[in-house]
């Protein structure tokens, strides 16, 4: 199986790790639901990048999984945005600090 750019695998994995950490940090630190949501997408795409890069070494199955992740992410985006919208309708804010109904 041909390897198109073996030298790029290492930098690609590094980039995906950086993107993932940015996503994690954003999810943990930001309060705006939209931003948190975007950060989750960022993490997903970091993972996608990992799959593509590793797929260069181990065959095409990594790239196939990327399509699955993208389709799930699309569905998740639709549901997630709908939730954010309905939270906004009820509370007139998307600040996660105020979404604490589950407090024990």
């Amino acid at each position, binding site marked *: 199986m041909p390897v198109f750019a073996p030298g790029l695998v290492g930098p690609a994995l590094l980039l995906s790790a950086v993107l993932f950490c940015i996503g994690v940090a954003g*999810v*943990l630190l930001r309060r705006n639901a939209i931003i*948190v949501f975007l950060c989750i997408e960022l993490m997903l795409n970091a993972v996608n990048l990992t799959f593509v890069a590793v797929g260069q070494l181990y065959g095409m199955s990594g790239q196939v999984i990327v399509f699955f992740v993208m389709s799930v992410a699309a569905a998740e985006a639709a549901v997630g945005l709908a939730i954010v919208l309905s939270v906004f309708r009820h509370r007139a804010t998307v600040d996660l600090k105020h979404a*604490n*109904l589950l407090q024990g």
Partner: protein
Amino acid sequence: MLATLQAAPQSIATAASAARWLWLAVALPLAGFLINGAIAFWQPQAKRAVSLIGPGVLLGAFAVVLYVAKSVGGVHLEAPIIVRLWDWIGAGDLRIPLAFQVDQLSLVMLMIVTGVGSLIHLFSVGYMHHDAGYARYFAYLNLFVANMLVLVLGDSLPVLFIGWEGVGLCSYLLIGFWYQDKANADAGKKAFIVNRIGDFGFLVAMFILWYAVGTLSFRELAVMAAGAFEGHTALVTAATLFLILGCTGKSAQIPLYTWLPDAMAGPTPVSALIHAATMVTAGVYLVARTNVLFALAPFSSMVLAGIGAATAIFAATIGLRQYDIKKVLAYSTVSQLGYMFLGVGSGAYVAGVFHLMTHAFFKALLFLGSGSVIHAMHHAYHETHSHDDPQDMRNMGGLRKAMPVTFVLMLLATLAIAGFPLLSGFFSKDEILASTFARGHDEPVYYLFWALGMAAALCTAVYMMRLITMTFLGENRTGAKEAPHLHEAPWIMTGPLVVLGILTVAGGLFNLPAFVGGHHWLETWLEPVLAPAAAIRPALLPHGATEWALIGAAVTVALGGLWLGWRLTSRAVIVPAKQAAAETGFAKVLFHKYYVDEIYDALVVRPLLRFSESTLWKQMDQGVIDGLGVNGAGRLARGLGRVGSWLQTGQVGLYLVLFLAGALYVIHVVTR
């Protein structure tokens, strides 16, 4: 000779195949219970169907028993026929089949239960016909007979115990038959609870026997008990003493007799069937059935005879001062049951069973006769809308003119129970007293029991003649308006009375002793059943001059008592119950039954209630169970939940941090 040898196994096989039909004798009353019960639920007015089914199933059962008795009677059975129906309990070494044991003793009991039972069912058709609970009554009565048959047929103690509990239940249901009156319901409860104490003894006895012998079947007990208890007299004594406790409950002996007089709250035919003729004799039957155990434990036998003698005299003296006609008969029953225990305790099992049989005849007759009297009295008071007590003998008197058939038959039964020569009770009571006296030669304490028995016989004759005199002789005290309404019962009630009257007179023929030319038929008949006990501790009977002296004494006491009872009562001025003055002196003590109920109330019931309320209820139940157990568990869960809920801040950020930490930890563990 050869022919008889060849014929013997053949006829035993025939008898065994005939005995297989006995399941029908139990199934018929059971079916009657189900059908009558269904009628009671959905068609309580359908009295004609009930009148057919209720006594009909009993007559059918009686026919089955007669058929089996005819087949078995011609064969000399050395070992009982076991009719195995199905496996009931199997647990470890314990294997208990639901099996019936057909032998000479169970056949005698079967005949009494179904025969006397049929007569009482027929009587009930007349007695209960106007009662709203007619179908319910026959349902209970059929169920009782089915259980009683299981009791006498059971081949092991647990199967017998099914019937034992079943008849207790039916007794409870029938005592409280008119449950709208709280006193009746209370009497039923009392009978049930007092019997529970006895049942506890029965159960413990079964545990001991299982532990010591390893079997609960009567047949195996008879064979194995002597070997298993060799050198363990204490164990067999304990087992039999607990059995005695069970018998004192069911058969109304000291100290558990108090329920039986109260049981008269039920309909009178019930008193005749359950509380005189059959159920209360279950204790005597049980002792006769486990005769080998009692033969192995002479101390227990002595206790049994002592209880019997004490009960006989105790209850007989109470009977001297009761005014309720059924109460007199109830105490008479307790007293006569005491005689039976005196008999079986003295080792004279045949005499005990014989008295059981004759007592079933004459006491059933007495109770049904009193039922006939109460029926007439109730009718008279009903017509004139009076609220006087139809059972109080002070309101009766002179009934011989109105009810001649009942009078003659009850007089016959009175003479029989008092031991008038050549009537049934004379032979059976005489045999018990004679064998008690003979036992006294080896164990002198039995002389005391004999003396108590003689005194009780005197009291019996006195109170029974007092009953007859107050009820039937002299002037009528019912009231001028009521007297014309007193009349004889219908034929459906007097018919059974006549049959019982014949049995009362002729019952002695079943075991006619040698001194009147008899052959001790019952004794010969029961010999195989009682052989295990006879081998260890044979029944003793006096001979020659002693025998004649004892008979002379018994006859003197009986005739003297009858004369005394008539003389004292007919001379006394009796006024109707409403105008009667309160009793004084010792008569008051007797009238209040030695205050035994009050003493039990103060010594047992009240302390138990107090203990239950203060300790068991308020401390144990409310404090420990509710406080520590139920609410404590809830409080613990709530406390832990409060601690856990501190984690639930509702802030997504915190959840995510924890999630991340968890994920990192898992990765750390997996990749290490």
